[in-house]
């Protein structure tokens, strides 16, 4: 039987399609625009001739970025912080979530509250800053160097990036593993660590992948605290801080001219401000910084879709 399509249904369908297509295009457009601008000439970028495809194609902006050592040092710093930071966060989150998922854990409610309270109330930026500063001082004392000389990458890696939501996500997933399997493993003589490693982790791979990716993305994208803690140390800046600093320094987009150097002073020898606009360099830096995410994004986005639904937190 072929159902007659009503007018209202047709209109609704058309509206839905148009709306979705427009919104989807809008979501990717800024990145396409940035890509095109990074390949366009200085004049075309500043006068706004670029709309979708590059105008007066050239790749001088990339040549500039590729020869900018500090950019790539900060890029490497970000990669390092993302990888090591994610591993560190995953280690204690996995163990903690496993312990919290056990019914036999004494004071389970209290531990959960301990965790969840951090989602409700945070001390605020200034107290956290003072606290991180103390941590830095202690780390400096252990390393035997003054606080301005220690590598603050480690402070960022160890002391930042914890997230109670991720722990709860993992805890819920562990609670879903049938107790019989654990018992069977226990009868076979498995220790606690073996049970976590050989039973729980393989059985909640999807959630673990999601949580690890949440950590990695937040590490890769983190800005504020790295900026706040690493004011003097531009050799350990992550790439996000470097990009923002470049925007502040080289253009008058954010800060007035008097506060910083301008593009004429920032641009390196061998390039002229006529051929190369600060904007093109910003676009090229942005494109270089999003490429890693764009590369893994198609493979991970289904995990994220799953992860969010699991996040519908249980009782």
């Amino acid at each position: 039987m072929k159902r007659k399509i009503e007018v209202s249904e047709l209109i609704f369908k058309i509206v839905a399609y148009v709306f979705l297509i427009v919104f989807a295009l809008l979501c990717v457009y800024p990145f396409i625009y940035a890509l095109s601008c990074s390949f366009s000439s200085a004049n075309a970028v500043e006068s706004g001739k670029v709309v979708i495809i590059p105008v007066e194609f050239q790749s001088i902006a990339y040549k500039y970025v590729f020869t900018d050592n500090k950019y790539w040092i900060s890029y490497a710093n970000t990669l390092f912080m993302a990888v090591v930071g994610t591993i560190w966060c995953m280690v204690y989150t996995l163990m903690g979530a496993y312990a919290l998922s056990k019914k036999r854990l004494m004071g389970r409610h209290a531990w959960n509250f301990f965790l969840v309270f951090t989602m409700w109330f945070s001390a605020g930026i200034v107290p956290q800053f003072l606290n991180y500063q103390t941590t830095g001082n202690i780390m400096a004392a252990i390393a035997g160097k003054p606080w301005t000389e220690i590598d603050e990458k480690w402070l960022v890696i160890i002391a930042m990036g914890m997230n109670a939501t991720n722990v709860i996500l993992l805890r819920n997933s562990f609670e879903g593993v049938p107790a019989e399997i654990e018992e069977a493993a226990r009868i076979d003589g498995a220790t606690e660590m073996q049970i976590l490693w050989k039973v729980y982790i393989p059985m909640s791979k999807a959630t673990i992948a999601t949580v690890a990716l949440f950590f990695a993305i937040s590490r890769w994208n983190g800005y504020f605290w790295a900026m706040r803690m690493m004011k003097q140390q531009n050799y350990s800046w992550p790439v996000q801080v470097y990009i923002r600093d470049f925007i502040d320094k080289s253009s008058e987009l954010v800060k007035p001219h008097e506060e910083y150097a301008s593009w004429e002073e920032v641009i390196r020898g061998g390039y002229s401000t006529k051929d190369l606009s600060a904007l093109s360099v910003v676009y090229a830096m942005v494109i270089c910084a999003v490429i890693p995410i764009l590369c893994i994004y198609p493979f991970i986005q289904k995990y994220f879709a799953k992860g969010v639904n699991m996040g519908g937190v249980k009782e």
Partner: protein
Amino acid sequence: MFKLKCDDFLEYDEATGTYSMSQEQKVRDETERNHWKTTGITILKDWRLYLMLVPMVVVYLLWRYLPMYQLLAAFKNPASATKVEDQVWYGLTNFKELFFGGQANEFWRAFRNTFIIAFYGLLFGFPFPIILALFFNEVKSNIARSIMQVCVYLPKFMSTVIITALTIVLFRGGTMGTGIVSKLLMAISPSGALHDAATSPYGLVFSDRYFRAIYQIVGIWEHGGYDSIVFFAAVIAVSPTSYEAAQIDGASKMQQMRYVVIPSILSTVVIMLIMKVGTLLSVGYEKVYLMSNTSNYESADIVATLSNRWSESGGSTALGIAAEMVNNLIGMILVIGANTVAKKASGVSLY
């Protein structure tokens, strides 16, 4: 009703005609006396499990709970010493200064801005993902829908720095040549306030008047697609038989929407709404920080950024701590209230 009888815990000895404590009661007493001992032994036997909890607890204690100690500075005299522990108590003087003193204007402005940004975020940001999810449900081709979903989730994974950089550049005006969005807006309104703001040196983002609108648009652009996941999951969970039943009863598309889809996703909507209300005041300060400068503080400055600025300039750290504490305490009350309401309304506790 349960009634306690003496032979529950006493034993009658017929030969001597006396009572003595029963064997069972002895065991019960023993258990009670050794409660803490047995608990301790259970914990000790299970030490591996507790050891696994330790790293997480230490991390949270050191970098989430220890900062709260600094909150004491809000109640102490900042002039008396540099470290909190050495400062003398000051009562509520800092709060008085904050609410009525010389910098009170700045604080109330930031407080109002926090509320307004959060409220607009709820008003415009909340319905959007629901509409998106309903529309996604209309796309019957899986491939087309997947492609669209990949596109709309994308902005969520971009860093705040990159999003704000692109926003500033697209809405720029003045010295570096106007951005493409500014140009579009100028074409739409050839004169007037919008036109003036678009051509001003800092562009639209850094104008008092348009910051809020741009902030919300960027917020929707960034989170809209990703937030629709939850609602889309609720929409596709509606069983096809419900649609069929409605169709047999002669319901049009709109009526199906009104009487089948909306009621079935209502519980999800309510829970998400309550959750949103709970996190109302935790406006993402990173984005505001990156999108504000002296020229748009009037509408962009929120409590977190204000407190950060106060402490950075070194002048009034104690006031900054007090300001953010007030903000976060109200936020916490909202979360707890929202959670209580959710529990009453749907029997689900969010935490």
